[in-house]
């Protein structure tokens, strides 16, 4: 297939595990939250508040435990049943926006939007975002580019600039 004029979207959920926990516990809104890996070994998801404190992805829990207590960070063991259920819902919703979807991980997928340009991809992307948010309560970011790599890059920019 030629790469000319393709429009690929990368859609991924923001702080996915943390966002899942927040959907079912509104008291967690705007609070610093960490989700730990199996057996509570490492930090595998952080809310924005935690990222702002400089706690890195994948860091062993014992290394940041004191810092977490000091900042009253709320800590969860991972609940993969919940995350998988929410992931299935999100992927199903996204699949209704275009026929060609590639689920890339639990919280991200590529969607070929080449045939949807006439609708305006910014508008279409916003529609995808608001639909996911309304139906399952999860925030997502979308990047669109001529290839998967560029889509990933655009998604990264979308994450950093809240104007989108």
């Amino acid at each position, binding site marked *: 297939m030629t790469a000319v004029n393709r429009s690929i979207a990368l859609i991924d959920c923001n702080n996915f595990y943390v966002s899942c926990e927040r959907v*079912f516990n*509104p*008291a*967690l*809104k705007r609070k610093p939250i960490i989700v730990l890996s199996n057996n509570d070994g490492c930090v595998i998801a952080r809310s924005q508040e935690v990222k702002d404190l400089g706690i890195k992805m994948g860091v062993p829990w014992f290394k940041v435990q004191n810092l977490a207590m000091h900042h009253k960070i709320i800590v969860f063991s991972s609940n993969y*049943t*919940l995350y998988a*259920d929410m992931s*299935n*819902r999100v992927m*199903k*919703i996204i699949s209704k926006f275009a026929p060609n979807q590639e689920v890339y991980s639990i919280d991200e997928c590529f969607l070929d939007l080449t045939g949807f340009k006439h609708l305006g991809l910014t508008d279409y992307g916003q529609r995808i975002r608001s639909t996911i948010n*309304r*139906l*399952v*309560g999860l925030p997502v970011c979308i990047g669109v580019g001529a290839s998967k790599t560029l889509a990933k890059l655009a998604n990264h920019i979308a994450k950093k600039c809240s104007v989108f």
Partner: protein
Amino acid sequence: MESKVSILSSMGLKPESSPREWPVFASTISAGFPSPADDYIENSIDLNEYLVQHKEATFFLRVQGDSMTGLGILNNDLLVVDRSLPVEDGKIVIAAVDGEFTVKQLVHSKKGCILKAANPAYRDIIVDPENDLEVWGVVRWAIHKL
């Protein structure tokens, strides 16, 4: 007890669950004398399909409390909540008020938004701008054992 709701840990319908169909009898049930024509089956019913219109947006919640008994929602009921339904005046909703879930009837009034209880023993919640209100979803069904 104020009616709070807790989300069930297994919220999703099992994706692999095959439709379970049950026979439906054609005539409606009269509360009086039983009809002699009841003895045939018209159709079958799949309860998943009957209760869930929009699978991706449907969640199950458990009620704790009796503030909504006037509208048929009892303590310990299972609620089927559909987030795809439009939030309209008079609907029974799951609302998050200042970080806590509650089930109430949403009513718009001159005073603003009111979360109405359906039990005279409870006061309505009048939402003022300082409250953090989020309507989480619209309640579609309340299921309780008779």
